């Protein structure tokens, strides 16, 4: 796939350098590091996360293996699946799965996204002559039967709740869409399609019911099915693969039309400089910042997974993303936190990279240019940033991440591969 002839070399290099950065973020149990997300920041816990960070990695490795079938990629996939298996709790949920609320368990939509990716990877291993560990089947069964059906299924609404103490009269379309992906993949993998059917149908109808029919957010899948809920491009785009699957599985064109409407909404959210607006509202202007770099990649990979091919409309987004790779191989987290878009000294939250965002870029880069190339080592970063209005420096090397104020005050100091930062005043 060659989207932009001029950027293929940079895509190859970006992929190679990002691979090296991910290698540096490895710890004994998985991929470590702090997270700055849309809901908040998990800086005090820097241990492994078993959230959506594995999706982009698994998809990226599968793309790389398709381009150059080497056993090493399959080994990596098997290793990651084993890691995920060790993080499952007895009720089917996963510990440390809440992304920007890590280390808490029960992350939504992060858990179903993780399990859907795991099921796709399991099928991929099988296609390529590997016998998946039977423990994966038990893991998926435990998640579907224990977590989804027993704990999250809402009998009144006939869809899935977000979490145990969730509001019982609404649902979150992005979470429900990820669950649909899990159920369809699980039904196909185990031949239990009939058992899944009523749950899939219920969830599918709730997705259609949640879609905004008119007004400023026409076509959007909002963050919640509650009336007046705002919409976010990434969470809306994440519904596309499920809608495509539902069109095929239920042979129902309503889902195809819903997918086309979501794409229309996504086009309206694209920013001229690349990336997508942070949040769109029905009754007030959209909040454009912060623009998460990984979210832009997530929108594009969701489009690709729903069957869309990369075209020239992707170019500004790809360029927006590639411009933000740093010397360590990581990518900036976002642009525009603290109202500092375009400033020479960005807010610290713009620059602290997170595995759970970088994986989406990895997936995109591997999709657009599956062959990685790059230096054997990556450099270090020292950038002037603002921490709560004060001038500070963000430093990242292969060993650590630090935020140090100009006066010498240390705001954050984390040694890579450890769970807890030495200092965290954030």
């Amino acid at each position, binding site marked *: 796939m060659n989207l932009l002839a001029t950027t293929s070399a940079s895509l190859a290099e970006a992929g190679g350098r990002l691979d090296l950065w991910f290698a540096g973020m490895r710890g004994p149990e998985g991929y470590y590091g702090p997270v700055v997300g849309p*809901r*908040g920041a*998990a*800086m*005090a*816990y820097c*241990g492994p996360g078993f959230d959506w960070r594995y999706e982009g990695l698994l998809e990226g490795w599968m793309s790389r293996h398709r381009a150059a079938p080497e056993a090493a990629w399959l080994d990596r996939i098997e290793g990651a699946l084993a890691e995920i298996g060790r993080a499952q*709790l*007895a*009720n089917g*949920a996963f*510990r*440390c799965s*809440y992304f920007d*609320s890590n*280390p*808490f*368990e*029960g992350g939504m939509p992060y858990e179903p996204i993780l399990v859907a990716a795991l099921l796709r990877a399991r099928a991929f291993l099988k296609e390529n002559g590997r016998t998946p560990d039977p423990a994966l089947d038990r893991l998926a069964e435990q998640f579907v039967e224990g977590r989804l059906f027993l*704990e999250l299924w*809402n*009998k*009144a*609404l006939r869809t899935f709740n977000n*979490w*145990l*103490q*969730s*509001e*019982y*009269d609404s649902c979150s379309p992005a979470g429900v869409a990820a669950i649909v992906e899990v159920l369809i993949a699980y039904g196909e993998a185990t031949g239990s399609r009939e058992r899944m059917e009523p749950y899939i149908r219920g969830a599918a109808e709730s997705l259609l019911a949640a879609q905004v029919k008119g007004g400023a957010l026409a076509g959007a899948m909002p963050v919640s099915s509650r009336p007046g809920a705002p919409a976010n491009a990434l969470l809306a785009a994440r519904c596309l693969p499920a809608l495509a699957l539902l069109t095929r599985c239920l042979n129902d064109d309503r889902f195809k039309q819903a997918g086309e409407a979501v794409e229309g909404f996504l086009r309206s959210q694209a920013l001229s400089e690349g990336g997508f607006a942070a949040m769109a509202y029905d009754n*007030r*202007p959209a*909040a454009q910042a912060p623009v998460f770099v990984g979210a832009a990649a997530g929108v594009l990979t969701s489009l690709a997974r729903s069957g869309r091919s990369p075209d020239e409309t992707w170019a500004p987004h790809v360029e927006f993303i590639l411009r933000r790779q740093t010397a360590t191989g990581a990518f900036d987290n976002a642009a525009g*936190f*603290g*109202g500092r878009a375009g400033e020479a000294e960005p807010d610290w939250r713009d620059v602290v990279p997170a595995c759970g965002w970088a994986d989406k870029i990895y997936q995109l880069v591997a999709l657009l240019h599956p062959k990685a190339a790059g230096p054997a080592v990556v450099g270090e970063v020292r950038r002037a940033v603002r921490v*709560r209005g004060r001038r500070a420096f963000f430093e990242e090397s292969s060993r650590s991440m630090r935020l140090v104020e100009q006066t010498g005050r240390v705001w954050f100091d984390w040694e890579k591969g*450890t*769970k*807890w*930062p*030495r200092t*965290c*005043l*954030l």
Partner: protein
Amino acid sequence: MSGCDFLTLLEQRRSTRVFQDKPVSQSLIAEVVRAATLMPTACNRQLWQFVAITDPAVRIKACRMSDAQQSYFYDAPVLVAVFYDISLELRNPCSTAQISMGLAIAALLMAAEANGLGAIYLGGIRNPDGLRKALGAPAHLKNFGVVCLGYRDDDPPAPNRRPVSEVLDFNAFTPRPKRFHADIRPHLWSLEQIADFRDKLLWYKGIHIDGKTLHVDSDLRFSAKFQYMTGRLGAMMARYSRPRVLDLLSFNGDVVFQLLNAGGAEAEVVYAYDLTLGIGRFIRERFARLNPPGRFEYLNNADPERVAIPLPDGHVSVLSCYERLEHFEDPRPLLREMHRVLAPGGSALVVVSNRFYLHMNRYRRMRQKNYALGRNWNRGPERKYEPRHLEAAFRAAGFRIVESAGLQPIEGVMAALAEKLLRRIGCHAWADGAADWRAQRYVTRSWTRYFSSSLAYELTRDN
């Protein structure tokens, strides 16, 4: 049916909170309601009415209009809304209309059990009048809640029952110490009363034994305070090799569970300590369903008269106490015990509610000398501390204060107000700025910490 059968039925009955997705026939519902109509009423007026809700659309409407908070309200196949015309008995000193309704509800529950159904009476509805309107009942009928009916899909353990000898007297009342107090001031509460209150509350609250919280409630995982607590404790654990960790008054075990999830494998053991064996049983059964990594042990208070942690001196390296000192008028006995079990050089994290925060409702109630338990129905006795008194108590117990921070400081409240105002006048960009400013300043170490909602102290023991 013999008397023995009747007692067996009573012993077997449980409040069912999880129902099978299986309809109940109208004839069976009628049979259950018939039992209610056989019960006595004041002056045999029989002014009750029952509405069985089986249509999902009506149920959702009823749920929304009554502002119900319980999952089983949404999940039960049948809701029987119970009404009584109380207008004739408004002045009756023994509230006979209410008693009549109570008898009918008891019959409904027993008849459900006898017919192989599960049931629970739900009186915790925020807006019973909304339920009445949702069902189109006339205004003279008062709603007394609902009975949820259906085929049982849970098997809850038997809660503890008070022995008859404790509740029955012959010919004259025997004075006994008060079981609970309808007053939040801790000086009224003995340790035994606090223990009993927490024990019963934990089992009542509808937290299923597998950890499923059956009430729609705030999710602890989205609490910035809880996230701060988990992060700080994790960092403390990382200072020691194979630390022993102790969480004080663990209640449902949330803090311990998260510590095990995040760092259980690195700890030698994580202890949960609380005041009753019932709480221990709850935590153990909850953890058995979740199986978090690492080693966990429950410790029960060693002496019913006083706080006594059953651990040797200097046994633990990390200690946590998350909003628990508030239960005690005098925090010093608990602090002395904490100091005793903490190893020299160990670390303790104590989070306490601050008296000097704008708890406006609290001030209003204090001015009215209203200390009723109502608002604290799920917390029990509570005292908010002044920082200087607390810090003096820490020092008196032998602790050194390493650091103190304020959580949810007063400037955050101001920023929230500013955000609200700016939104109202349409300045959304400025409002977003205020929201972002507030989000970044949840924890403060400046002087404003003394005006924060909670104070977090990191303590150590030097010798």
